[in-house]
């Protein structure tokens, strides 16, 4: 998948402003960004649901603007919202999909058996989808997205609104599928642990790609670890560190003395060399993807992507607190 200077405008509003990236075959590629950053618009263009205003996007070797039919045949989609027919059984949903993608009946039957087994729904094949739990519906959608052996599978917030246990379960199935089918996956998510699973991540903000690399390289690019120490006298310790090591610490009531340094592990021995006050505990933390996200977009990953209802609930809680 290659995206080159992709632009999508809606009237005066530029939703996607010159985005370029490349996804290698078999890669799990994460696409992160705050709400309104242009993620959904980019995906819609890549899935041929929207026409690009300018630039070129090729998915599975085909141009999304001029060869939409070939692109559609080679991609699978799992959307944020469920797109199953509740009144069809699991098997009927899959068969419908197979016919839409032009698979011969025998192949549909074979693939269906295999995939239902892979997502653990074999015994539910003849049950109507409306009787399924949220997690089961998701698994059925993932199976459906893979039925026609797409070269690229788009997963747009595939686990949104599911409980942690179900999310783990779904990811077990996704890992299993990746091991067996080597499908390229394009993922958007607001869960840190899911972003960590990606081979590479692109962070998009205000319609532009602001960072793109492996999760480790992105974290390293921030350049600072967080070292938190608790000493007998934090004020003295802070002064000593500033004097001897040239690092300005920050005293935090809840944690102790917090220091931001390029290489935390190498810093700790030097710290002990110079300090005269007793140290009770040391904690070295590498930057998380959340730190990376804050660095590039100025927003927290969870806050930035939390749905309106979630934000509303948070606000309501804060308000309740204040009043109480």
């Amino acid at each position, binding site marked *: 998948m290659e995206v080159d200077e992709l632009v999508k405008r809606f009237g005066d509003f530029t939703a996607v402003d010159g985005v370029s990236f490349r996804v290698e075959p078999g890669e799990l590629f994460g696409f992160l960004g705050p709400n309104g950053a242009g993620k959904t618009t980019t995906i819609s263009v890549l899935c041929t649901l929207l026409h690009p205003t300018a630039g070129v996007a090729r998915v599975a070797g085909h141009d999304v603007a001029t060869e939409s*039919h070939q692109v559609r045949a080679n991609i699978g989609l799992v959307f944020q919202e469920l*797109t199953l027919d509740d*009144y*069809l059984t699991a098997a009927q949903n899959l*068969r419908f999909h197979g016919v839409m993608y032009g698979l011969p009946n025998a*192949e549909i039957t074979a693939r269906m058996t295999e995939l239902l087994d892979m997502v653990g729904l074999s015994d539910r094949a003849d049950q109507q989808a409306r009787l399924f739990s949220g997690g089961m519906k998701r698994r059925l959608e993932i199976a459906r997205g893979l039925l026609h052996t*797409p070269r690229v599978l788009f997963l747009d917030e595939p686990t949104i609104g599911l409980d942690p246990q179900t999310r783990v379960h779904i990811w077990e199935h996704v890992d299993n599928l990746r091991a067996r089918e080597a499908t390229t996956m394009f993922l958007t998510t607001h869960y840190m642990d899911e972003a960590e699973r990606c081979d590479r991540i692109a962070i998009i903000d205000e319609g532009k790609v602001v960072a793109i690399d492996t999760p480790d390289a992105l974290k390293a690019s921030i350049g600072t670890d967080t070292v938190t120490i608790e000493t007998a006298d934090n004020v003295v310790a802070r002064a000593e560190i500033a004097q001897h090591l040239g690092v300005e610490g920050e005293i935090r009531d809840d944690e102790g003395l917090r220091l931001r340094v390029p290489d935390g592990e190498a810093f700790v021995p030097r710290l002990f060399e110079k300090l005269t006050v007793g140290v009770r505990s040391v904690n070295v933390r590498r930057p998380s993807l959340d730190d990376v996200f804050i660095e590039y977009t100025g927003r927290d990953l969870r806050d930035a992507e939390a749905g309106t209802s979630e934000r509303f609930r948070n606000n309501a809680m804060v308000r309740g607190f204040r009043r109480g």
Partner: protein
Amino acid sequence: MATTAEPRPVAPSAVALHREGWLARNARTVEMVARREIIRFTRMPARIVTGLAQPILFLVVLGAGIDSITGSSAAGGVDYQQYILPGVLAMSVLFSAFFSSVSIVWDREFGFMREMLVAPVSRTGLVLGKLLGSSLVAVGQGIILLVAAPIIGIDLTVLDFVAVFALMVLLAFSLTAFGILIASRMHRMESFQMVMSLVINPLLFLSGAIFPIDNLPGWLSVATRLNPVTYGVDPIRRVMIPGVDPLTISGWTVPIWFDVLVVLIVGVLCLTFAVRSFRRTE
């Protein structure tokens, strides 16, 4: 600007696209989309009952009520309950067609439409499948009402039955195409209440389904002759009740072939615009 793609192995799905001819592939799409409509219909018994409730109410209650004040031979030269049965059949088809457009907007709102729109199939195939499925459901719904015919004294020969069936298929095709056209322009479920009062009910009341339209005041008479449903009800009634007053336009007795032609043309026009409209929403 475009970077050239490296040659990659062709995925099985890409092969599948070329394995079948264009026609065979579209035929399968149409069949599958239609089959989904029918499966959904059978899974929702409440919908079947609701679809039958109003026509039966008209036939049994309104029919008996009007008969009680007018006596026999009041409407178009026949007993009112007999007179209204063909109208009730048309009503049933009209409501089914309306429901099919509701279901399209429903699909759009609840996501399944997206599953269909991102598939590598032609929009025409999707629309034709929807049309076929919904028309069959509409005819099926109407056929159930036909059992009332002998009960209220209308005896149909096998040939009459086949003719009524064919005319209902034609009307179902035309009205469902009209329903799909409405759905292609409508994006919110809330708008349907409006469509029901401003489109569906006027089409029903101005069609001669419920009362004879021979002696109406001028402007009403014109409105009924402009209503395509009128041309669907008239031939069904003439087949079911020999000797009933036929549809006339300022004195000219409309031949049945003309009725059929009007319904057919309206259906084809609606279908053409519906397909065009769905193509544009790409």
